[in-house]
């Protein structure tokens, strides 16, 4: 069997266990960072509303950033959008730092570094792991958002790739 496929299978097997337990382990930390992020973004949005740069809040998009994964910055971004959506020139976005979880994944990839044939392959494995985490985080994020929905009943909460495919949560 091709060594690349074999390696990816090994990573897949390890991360099937790891990512699920990772989310459980760092649930509190992720919840806290999400809530503070949400509050910062909401305050920012209110200021923009006050300056008449934004209308009523219509969508909250929680977006996964592949650039964040590759450049070791924030993996998620919260965007507060009015009816104009992405068309509005003024942006209200805050980065959601999932630091404890992302650090574990980075260190795990570095640990597996010897088996990786090239830097490009390493990036691919990292993105694959991150995408898996993002899929697993959908239900977790939905639970986080459930609390906020009671305060924002008219707002649609979306989860997905930045300006890509979203699902309503």
């Amino acid at each position, binding site marked *: 069997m091709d060594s690349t496929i074999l390696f990816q299978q090994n990573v897949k097997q390890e991360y099937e266990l790891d990512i699920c337990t990772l989310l459980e382990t760092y649930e509190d930390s992720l919840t806290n960072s999400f809530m503070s992020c949400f509050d910062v973004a909401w305050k920012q949005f209110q200021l923009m509303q006050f300056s008449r740069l934004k209308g009523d809040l219509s969508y909250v998009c929680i977006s996964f*950033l*592949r*650039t964040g994964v*590759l*450049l070791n*910055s924030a993996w998620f971004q919260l965007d507060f959008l009015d009816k104009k959506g992405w068309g509005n*020139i003024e*942006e209200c976005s805050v980065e959601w730092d999932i630091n404890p979880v992302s650090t574990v994944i980075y260190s795990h990839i570095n640990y597996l570094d010897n088996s990786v044939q*090239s*830097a*490009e392959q390493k990036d691919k494995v990292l*993105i694959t792991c991150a995408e898996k985490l993002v899929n697993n985080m959908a239900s977790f994020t939905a639970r986080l958002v459930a609390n906020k929905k009671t305060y924002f009943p008219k707002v649609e909460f979306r989860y997905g*790739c*930045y*300006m*890509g495919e979203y699902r309503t949560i």
Partner: protein
Amino acid sequence: MKYFRLGQDDREDQYLTIKGLINLPCFQQIKQGDISGLPKSNSYMVVSSYSDKLPNILTNQLFMVTQDIFALIQLFLGEVDYRCMFLVNRRRNIEKFYYIPQLPLINCLSSQCKSNLDKSHFTKIVIKRERYPDIFRISNVKDRVIIISLPLAESILRRDIKGVQLEQIWLEE
């Protein structure tokens, strides 16, 4: 909005050189980012590479992209002027068709930038806080600095493109 510098992946075995570019009559013009002097369709250029695959984006000598990236650029920028080039490496038996889009040239560097004196190498790129096109080239510098926006960077990465390197740049404080 976040912006990134788009580059060619030079890590490990990805190194690649296009031979004979300097012989083109309008080479100096092309180096400055103006492709108007280049014929619409160019005969093939010979490539020397260590890899068996040609990347989707080339930036080191000329900014060239494959058809899928060019379609993406057109999606973000609209109709753009372009030239074509065919790259061949007979030794490794690989060939690829590339597009050379005419990118908008914008002089947007901030005084907070860190570079050498003739601006041929940047250690930290800072641009003025304005709204820019989703892809453009910084004008009046020796280095080939191509900047893309976050939406375009994410679109490129979603498409599993090979040989791309991104570097975050900063907006003026």
